[in-house]
């Protein structure tokens, strides 16, 4: 390759040139809006969040208790059999600490991102959330955490009805 080919195609444009408008561009903002049907399982899940409860679905064949709930067991490929509630406490499966926002700008207060394996669900059945009321340097794998909910009036039926997770015991 290197021996036979002398030149590789591609004209680089520096970011400053792009921003300064010296490169001919066409701009367009797509209008792409959606209202996704949450479906049977997730509609119930969201309604239960309003009630301050976390709903799971169960499969009799493999015995798993699944969050987020679903109408089908993806391992057994059959309809799930029932519903149950799991606790709003759990253990940290993994975590990371973000110092940047979605647009790549820096943020002052880091966001602690966690995957919490919920108590009462099958092992490893985690959900994604954030953590507060702790110094990010003190977070540990396997730490026990508990959900902090919005007051009932403020819940809308969203995963953010849980504001964040905090350590189960005072550190």
């Amino acid at each position: 390759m290197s021996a036979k080919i002398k030149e590789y195609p591609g004209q680089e444009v520096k970011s400053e040139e792009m921003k300064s408008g010296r490169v001919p561009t066409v701009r367009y903002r797509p209008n792409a809006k959606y209202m996704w049907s949450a479906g049977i399982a997730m509609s119930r899940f969201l309604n239960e969040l309003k009630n301050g409860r976390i709903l799971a679905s169960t499969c009799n064949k493999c015995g798993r208790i699944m969050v987020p709930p679903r109408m089908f067991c993806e391992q057994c490929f059959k309809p799930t059999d029932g519903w149950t509630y799991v606790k709003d406490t759990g253990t940290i499966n993994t975590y990371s600490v973000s110092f940047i926002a979605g647009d790549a700008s820096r943020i002052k207060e880091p966001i602690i991102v966690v995957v919490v394996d919920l108590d009462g669900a099958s092992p490893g059945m985690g959900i994604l959330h954030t953590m507060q009321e702790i110094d990010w340097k003190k977070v540990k794998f396997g730490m026990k955490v508990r959900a902090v909910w919005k007051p009932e009036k403020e819940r809308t039926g969203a995963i953010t009805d849980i504001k964040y997770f905090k350590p189960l015991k005072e550190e």
Partner: protein
Amino acid sequence: MFGKKRVAVVGAGLTLFRRNLKETGREMCYEAAKMALDAAGLTLKDIQSVAYGSAPDAFDGIHMKGENMTDGSGAWRKPFSRVYVGGGTGVFTADAGWWHVASGLFDTCLVVAEEKMSSCYPHPAYAFTTIFDPIMDRPHGTTLIWIFSLEMHRYMHVHGIKKEQIALVSVKNKRNALDHPCAQLGAKITVEDVLNSEIMCWPVQRLDISPTSDGAAAIVLASEDVAKKLTDNPVWIDGVGWCIDSTYWTNRDLYYPDYVECAARMAYKMAGIKNPPKEIDVAEPYDPFDYKELHHMEGLLLCKKGEAPKLTEEGVTQRDGDLPINPSGGLLGVGNPIAAAGLMKVCEIFWQLRGEAGKRQVPGDPRTGVAQAWGDLMQYGSVIVMRR
């Protein structure tokens, strides 16, 4: 062992990988495709089918963008299809080209992978927010770096791996990329540079990750009869594999990529490979983050679980080591125009096996190479095994 028709790679082409290229998506496709055709000694008349791959339409800003790229990819009035498996697309497009020819339907297939991330303004990172589940993940403001740092941290925790060990991958690949003519980020850096770089989302730091890029790559595939007429040095596609894991990524233990192992086993079985570390001479696993090279080495069964950092420390994965990994410089060094980056790795194996990789050439006459890509929500593995 496989199909009716054996399939060979007979030419490859690559554009520069840069943060912004002036060329439009279809122009980049054309440049890479033309280069690959010239290398193969063919013209568009000889091409019977086109397999194209590209990741999110949101970057290019065109819905059904494959349809916009047909002409640029040489598919005027030809059978054209686009495959799309997130980050796994680049290597998977080569797999797709393989079945076009191995099925017996076509004697030749032009495989093109393209990505124009710079169109997404002001930064392609925004587009990534739309890959997450709208109920469970998006409302937190989830970003790509969040979830990869979760995976990196889990991998480090389960095996007790330190950042210094992982940083060695970034050092190696960026240095390898200095010898790649298309590279965006070839550089001589040290482990200290990585450890001192800006913390993005702990444990991920700036020098742990690859950039966003524009670029395109292309290869020409031919059936055995045609390939033998074209060249004395065809590189055979002996195995293809792909696998996807559950979308419920928070229900999975991220320390090990089962889906890469599943894809690798599929490809190795087809290729008759029983002892991967012994039988594979060079490998290009997907490395958008430095820890992923290690993660994928293990998933590709090139070493035991948790052992990849040790191999790196011992220099085994250097170009002159026992198992060279990412001699191209990988995504960390060459750049990451998602689909094109994966196909770039296939191009690299092609050139390596033919002894045409110039300054990047792995010594010792490599005969069997593997390229692998990774995608989706830490779900997808695509693998290709190539042999001379």
